[in-house]
């Protein structure tokens, strides 16, 4: 390569490396601000500010959803495997909301450590499959958990099949 071109190429690559380093440092410094939501573990550890509007995200814990009798208030727990935070929301939930689904909620934590949400978004994971496959997986999971006719002797712990976290 021509020495002049080589020099030019090096200058450009050097500039690029410098800016990349600056951007990396900036992104690392702003990590907490770039994260869209706090995880239940962070909230339990007291990392999330109280009485300030924040986002919390996690999986809706199976069997935790209770609905109000005369209004649209819903209580449910959101967990990430380590900790759980209780959410209260009044309003219409997204279509994808269900137990085991990932969600991101906007709201505030009150004194009792309850998260009062003003907006609940469903988080979709990267898995796409036809309903029959999902049914088959659900059945396999069920069989594994409670034991099917064939193998009720071995009972192992079940891992969630669609875990985005």
């Amino acid at each position: 390569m021509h020495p002049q071109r080589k020099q030019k190429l090096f200058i450009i690559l050097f500039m690029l490396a410098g800016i990349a380093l600056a951007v990396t440092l900036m992104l690392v410094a702003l990590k907490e601000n770039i994260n869209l939501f706090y995880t239940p573990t962070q909230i339990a550890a007291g990392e999330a500010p109280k009485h300030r509007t924040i986002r919390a995200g996690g999986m809706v814990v199976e069997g935790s959803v209770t609905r109000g009798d005369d209004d649209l208030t819903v209580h449910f727990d959101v967990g990430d495997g380590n900790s759980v935070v209780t959410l209260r929301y009044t309003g219409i939930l997204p279509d994808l909301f269900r137990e085991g689904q990932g969600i991101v909620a906007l709201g505030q934590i009150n004194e009792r450590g309850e998260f009062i949400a003003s907006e609940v978004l469903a988080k979709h994971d990267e898995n796409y499959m036809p309903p029959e496959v999902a049914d088959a997986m659900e059945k396999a999971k069920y069989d594994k958990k409670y034991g099917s006719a064939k193998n009720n002797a071995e009972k192992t712990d079940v891992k969630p099949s669609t875990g985005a976290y």
Partner: protein
Amino acid sequence: MWTRLKRLYHKMGSPKWFYEITSQWSPWILLVGSALMLTGIVWGLAFAPADYLQGNSFRIIYIHVPASLLSQSAYLFMAVAGLVGLVWKMKMSFVVAKVIAPIGASLAIMSLLTGAIWGKPTWGTWWVWDARLTSMLILLFLYFGVIAIYNAIENDEMANKAAAILSIVGSINIPVIKYSVEWWNTLHQPATITLTKKPTMAPEMFIPLILTILAFYCWFAVWVFARTRNEILFKERKTNWVKKLLNNDKGAQL
């Protein structure tokens, strides 16, 4: 192989050669791309099974993913073309970089729009300021910046250099977009297709997606070639070969 590639590179550096070679290639690439697109879209929209959770709304993936992927690839093509132009002083390379910018911008817009249309029924919101969506918006603004430079600076050489530098610097955003879903908590889900792992998608949904992605790349090539040829005709309008070409065309029409 290497010498042939090198010869092709030098040939492509000549506007006349570039014009002639891409004129020969384009119909074939267009044909292949269109066949892939037709198969992929019909398969994806009509025959692929609905998703177990999202139902039919997932089908926007057949436009959203190719557009997003290509808008990022296009940016890298533009940055590399700018680099080649700056270092090796290849004029044709600058022309290619210039014509890619509006195409890339329109792909980024397509990606953001289809994402919003999908986001409303799936997430419950059109837009959220998470790392993936924001970095994608930054990509669109970078494209706008490059286009603005070409329009604002009268002197071609200056415009080419300034735009090339912006494209090269802006290419830092590409890995940020790619890994945003892994580095930070985002609403956007992680990648379904990766080069290293098996896709987390059923094959009967995945194959049409691959077809539409390939189709987008073919169409992109045809589009870039066509716009570049257009630029060549304008830039070289005073040369003999262009005059002859245009006269022949006129003769054919009359």
